[in-house]
């Protein structure tokens, strides 16, 4: 360990070197004096001949050091001292950096958990892909159990495949019922995802057959095991009542596993073959190729790329489309990486998160420019320090390194605080996720990936902020600076120009973020103003789960009619009805393949038309105008012989499918029967507030019964919605205490989700844009204030020579305004280009909206003028006497 010894014996080596040099000089002087030179002259000559003693000693010492590391530590110590010496500067720089880095890290932690790690707990999750079927018009669909089985059995490029369907279970005895979200899955689910049980076992080979209702076993989640069984192993083998059927718990999933829908968490997994048991005995879902209700996940075979497997999937889907033409005609299928899958929260978050990440990136650039600016301002006052060091023989590269070390220190401190902020804010992803009913992954894990991102960010920031000041360091002429004793720290024209450029960049970046925020604010404002086509005020809603009560269609009908009757007697209630879907809420993508009399669909036309099951009085209650025909009535039931099914369609349906628009009396085929159109209602917004009209139809609840969807009861009241909500809950319990009632709320609240993305984008981006404008103006103010301070004596002289206040103001303010206008122009042009990417996320706003640009220009100008005003005012108050005394 030679180098170790060297470190410890280094003091001796250094001392030897110093002594030696001293002896050398002494000997030289002695010799020169012996030749008759006077002592003083000899000393000078000796030194001249020798060279720079300090630098040489330093270079001699460096031989024994690990130069890179050790001078780095020296720089570090010196940097720390510098930061301590200027606490105000350090605090401002560190805090703004922390703000910028914190915002970026937080958004990245969201992205990391939602997009980069969509299946936590799975082994090699990157090999797991989503298999989605495609309707003739390319719309993504789920798959049916039968289709999935064929895919599973015939695909070669796929190692294994599983299906899953999310479902709310009613768990517990008849009186204490809890709603628990789980998945119905095929037996190999855990194998495909590569998950090992935390306790007990997963589904055995015997439990993996396709025999319906044969295996009443479930796997529970780790959190559920902890909260309901105190993590006790006795839970394995215990019975659990789910939707009034008894299941046996066979195993517990590991702690970090939450299911197969990105961002959502599930607590129970039961075999898909048990579908009938948890849905009142109806297992048509497993036997009907048209009932596409499952999500399919596949694990790619070893060495196979997703593109290769996709070709096979497409080819096979086309074969199925021919072989099962009655159900699959025109259908195709594709494979998607999980983060592109249409199921889970990542789909709704992909757009907003990428916009957020970009804006945070811009914000960080502004922060960097600001800190660089501060550093440049400080560099001017440190010129002497640098000059002295250069005079003593420090190479310029050393000064550059010194500045970079200092910015690295700042960046690391900022990143530290930023990382803490991100940890503290990690819970906040919840705010971004619209309520789907399914509990979402509330706390994205702050993992190594996020930590690495922060570190990378800190390094990037250090270089970005340090580069300009570092290159500037030591550029000044040493002689000039040292000679110039009268004014400490004037900056060169070059530095001033650099700082000006930085301010222009800052303003430009701020303008981009402002335009983005402005567009989203306007979009949100307009979206809020769009009338959904129904009146959501003064309506209470509650979801009733028939499936978990094990109701038949008959029982559901009896219950619904009784509840409706009781509610209509409540004081203030003006209307009661029910349907299986609340417009503009989440879910409700139920559709039926229709065949319409006298209408021949185009080759790739999607005839899978969305529908809602409604009770009589629904349109009246929702205030959806009936254009022609009649509403459903209580006689629209199954008792007639022959069965006379009816439907009501919307205007878009008529426009699209009914020639001559004489809809009433036309026949439409679905569910294996011919329905008669009895009414036409106005279009409403079904899924999104900004959607184009969608063909849509309604069928009566007494003719079509789908227990798995449950029913939503609506109560319109003259009184308070709160009262109506209480009445709903109370009367539902009274009608049948075993029927679980969930999500009792107001209709306004339940459709708020439709505007959720808009609202979040508008408010978050406003905050970020406000922050960037503020930072840009601080930068502007800094530069202006500094330039006024620099020019104090110039102003003094000009005032003495008779300059008017206006002239002074002009000189001072013109620089600031020039910077601002330049920034505005550049920023606006960049914003035009950048915002084109978000146009699909805007509601009725063009990315080039002139009002937004005008507003942004106005705001920026006002704030910029304010930022210039204070320094300008100070310039006006310059007392010539005081100013000139500096000279």
């Amino acid at each position, binding site marked *: 360990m030679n180098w170790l010894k060297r470190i410890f014996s280094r003091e001796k*080596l250094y001392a*030897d*070197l110093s*002594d*030696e*040099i001293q*002896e*050398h000089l*002494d*000997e*030289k002087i002695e010799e020169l004096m012996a030749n008759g030179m006077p002592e003083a002259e000899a000393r000078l000559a000796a030194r001249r*001949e*020798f*060279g*720079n*003693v300090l630098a*040489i*000693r330093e*270079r*001699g*010492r*460096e*031989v*024994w050091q690990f130069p890179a590391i050790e001078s780095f530590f020296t720089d570090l110590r010196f940097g720390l001292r510098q930061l301590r010496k200027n606490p105000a500067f350090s605090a401002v720089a560190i805090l703004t950096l922390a703000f910028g880095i914190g915002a970026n890290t937080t958004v990245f932690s969201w992205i990391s958990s939602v997009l980069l790690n969509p299946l936590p707990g799975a082994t090699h999750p990157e090999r797991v892909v989503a298999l989605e079927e495609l309707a003739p018009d390319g719309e993504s669909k789920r798959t049916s159990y039968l289709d999935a089985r064929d895919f599973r059995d015939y695909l070669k490029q796929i190692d294994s495949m599983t299906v899953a369907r999310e479902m709310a279970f009613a768990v517990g005895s008849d009186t204490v019922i809890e709603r628990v979200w789980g998945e119905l899955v095929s037996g190999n689910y855990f194998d495909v995802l590569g998950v090992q049980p935390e306790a007990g076992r997963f589904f055995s080979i015997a439990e993996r057959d396709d025999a319906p209702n044969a295996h009443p076993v479930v796997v529970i989640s780790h959190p559920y095991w902890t909260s309901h069984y105190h993590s006790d192993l006795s839970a394995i083998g215990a019975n659990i009542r789910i939707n009034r059927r008894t299941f046996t718990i066979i195993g517990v999933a590991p702690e970090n596993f939450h299911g197969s829908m990105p961002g959502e968490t599930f607590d129970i997994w039961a075999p898909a073959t048990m579908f009938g048991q948890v849905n009142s005995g109806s297992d048509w879902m497993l036997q009907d190729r048209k009932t596409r209700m499952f999500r399919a996940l596949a694990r790619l075979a070893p060495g196979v790329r997703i593109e290769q497997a996709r070709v096979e999937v497409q080819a096979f889907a086309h074969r199925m489309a021919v072989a099962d033409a009655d159900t699959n005609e025109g259908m195709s299928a594709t494979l998607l990486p999980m983060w592109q899958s249409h199921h889970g929260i990542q789909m709704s978050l992909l757009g907003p998160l990428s916009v957020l990440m970009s804006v945070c990136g811009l914000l960080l650039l502004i922060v960097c420019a600001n800190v660089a600016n501060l550093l440049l301002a400080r560099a001017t006052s440190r010129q002497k320090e640098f000059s002295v060091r250069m005079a003593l023989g420090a190479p310029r590269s050393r000064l550059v390194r010194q500045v970079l070390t200092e910015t690295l220190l700042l960046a690391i401190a900022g990143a530290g605080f930023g990382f803490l902020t991100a940890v503290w804010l990690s819970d906040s992803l919840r705010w971004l996720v619209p309520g789907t009913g399914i509990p979402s992954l509330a706390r994205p894990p702050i993992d190594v990936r996020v930590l690495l991102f922060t570190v990378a960010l800190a390094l990037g920031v250090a270089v970005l902020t340090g580069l300009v000041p570092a290159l500037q360091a030591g550029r000044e002429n040493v002689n000039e600076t040292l000679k110039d004793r009268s004014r400490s720290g004037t900056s060169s024209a070059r530095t001033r120009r650099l700082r000006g450029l930085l301010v222009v960049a800052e303003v430009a970046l701020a303008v981009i973020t402002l335009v983005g925020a402005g567009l989203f604010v306007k979009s949100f404002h307009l979206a809020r103003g769009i009338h959904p086509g129904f009146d959501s005020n003064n309506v209470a809603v509650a979801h009733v789960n028939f499936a978990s009560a094990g109701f038949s269609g008959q029982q559901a009908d009896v219950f619904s009619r009784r509840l409706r009757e009781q509610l209509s007697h409540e004081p203030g209630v003006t209307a009661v009805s029910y349907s299986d879907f609340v417009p503009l809420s989440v879910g409700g993508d139920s559709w039926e393949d229709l065949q319409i009399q006298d209408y021949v669909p185009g080759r790739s036309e999607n005839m899978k038309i969305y529908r809602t099951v409604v009770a009589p009085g629904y349109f009246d209650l929702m205030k959806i105008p009936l254009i022609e025909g009649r509403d459903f009535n209580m006689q629209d039931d199954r008792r007639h012989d022959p069965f006379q099914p009816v439907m009501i369609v919307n205007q878009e349906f008529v426009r699209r499918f009914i020639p001559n628009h004489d809809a009433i009396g036309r026949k439409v085929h679905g569910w294996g029967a011919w329905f008669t159109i009895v009414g036409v209602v106005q279009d409403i917004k079904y899924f999104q507030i900004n959607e184009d009209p969608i063909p849509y139809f309604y069928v009566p609840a007494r003719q079509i019964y789908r227990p798995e969807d449950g029913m939503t009861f609506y109560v319109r009241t003259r009184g308070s919605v709160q009262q109506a909500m209480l009445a709903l809950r109370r009367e539902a319990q009274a009608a049948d205490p075993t029927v679980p009632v969930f999500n009792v709320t107001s209709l306004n609240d339940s459709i708020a989700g439709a505007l959720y993305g808009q609202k979040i984008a508008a408010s978050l981006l406003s905050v970020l844009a406000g922050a960037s404008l503020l930072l840009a103006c601080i930068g502007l103010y800094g530069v202006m204030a500094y330039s006024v301070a620099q020019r104090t004596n110039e102003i003094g002289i000009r005032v003495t020579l008779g300059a008017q206040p206006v002239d002074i103001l002009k000189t001072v303010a013109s620089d600031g305004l020039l910077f601002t206008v330049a920034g505005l122009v550049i920023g606006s042009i960049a914003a035009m280009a950048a915002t084109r990417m978000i146009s699909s996320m805007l509601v009725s706003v063009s990315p080039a909206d002139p009002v937004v640009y005008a507003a942004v220009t106005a705001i920026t100008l006002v704030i910029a003028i304010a930022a210039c005003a204070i320094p300008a005012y100070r310039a006006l108050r310059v007392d010539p006497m005081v100013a000139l005394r500096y000279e």
Partner: protein
Amino acid sequence: MKKSEQRDLFPGALEMMILRTVKRQPLHGYALVQRIKRASNDLLQIEEGSLYPALQRLLKDGLLKAEWGVSATNRRVRTYKITAAGEKHLEREVTSFEKMLDGISRVLVPVKS
């Protein structure tokens, strides 16, 4: 500040000269510098101090040994001696230097004639 008329030595040149000089006779720093200057007829303007970092490098690489002692003029001096490794190193360096010089002169000769 460097004097413009001063020629930069190529890397390793100073070390080579030090080794060569010390090989002939162990010397201390000051004497070493005077010896090199004289031997080069003062053609090589060596900044006296620049000798010391070079000496430190040679010490570190084990090509020289140093010992404090007293000189003939009764002065406390640190005397440098070449080591076996130093001799080998010097031999290698001189050979490669001569090759290089030979190559350079071959290129330069035709121009002069």
